[in-house]
């Protein structure tokens, strides 16, 4: 079962995690939070409606097939958010722990490079668009065949 949600609402990670506990085995999750330690007061996420959701569904489906998952969930918040709030939740379910863990890592690495999202930070009175980082590309690259 694939679940993808892109929404300005707060992410219900507990509910998403519980929903993955369907038929036993293993559930792995990753939650990304707005970092509170670098002076950012507001983080804003922009996306490409329709194309972003489609990219996330493709990613989740690729993981489901590659690792034989029973379920995969990607929830990504958009719009303005504050330090400590959840930006992204990824969850995977499988009969086997290694499959759940690897697929979870795959999804978070790949969604950073393969899905159209853009971050803008506010620090003090200044706002700036976050630049893509080479090590995100490297992290995503390790999953290529």
């Amino acid at each position, binding site marked *: 079962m694939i679940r993808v949600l892109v929404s300005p609402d707060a992410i219900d990670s507990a509910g998403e995690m519980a929903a993955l506990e369907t038929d036993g085995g293993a559930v792995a999750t990753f939650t990304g939070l707005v970092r509170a330690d670098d002076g950012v007061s507001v983080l804003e996420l922009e996306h490409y409606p329709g194309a972003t959701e489609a990219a996330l569904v493709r990613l989740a489906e690729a993981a489901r097939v590659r690792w034989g998952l029973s379920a995969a969930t990607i929830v990504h918040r958009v719009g303005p958010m504050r330090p400590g709030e959840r930006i992204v939740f990824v969850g995977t379910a499988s009969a086997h722990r290694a499959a759940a863990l690897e697929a979870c890592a795959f999804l978070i690495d790949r969604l950073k490079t393969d*899905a*159209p999202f*853009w971050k803008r930070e506010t620090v003090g009175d200044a706002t700036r*668009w976050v*630049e893509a980082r080479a090590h995100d590309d490297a992290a995503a690259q390790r999953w290529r065949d």
Partner: protein
Amino acid sequence: MKILYFAWVRERVGVAEEDVTPPSGVDTVAALVDWLATRSDGHAAAFAERDKLRAAVDQAFVALDSPIAGAREVAIFPPVTGG
């Protein structure tokens, strides 16, 4: 043809989307960007650094030298920074 802009490309162009009819010689994303850059100072500023631009044709990520024949929607944006 609908053109969409995101992030700082959108801010510099000044609009989130526009409908355009490029001349027939404009047959790749790169050529489209060249042509769009002539429309305003904002467009020119948005497209000044070509190596910082990425594109999607009909919602599929493509290289800038990809053809646009038959495309209904072309999006131009900076490298993505989600997750």
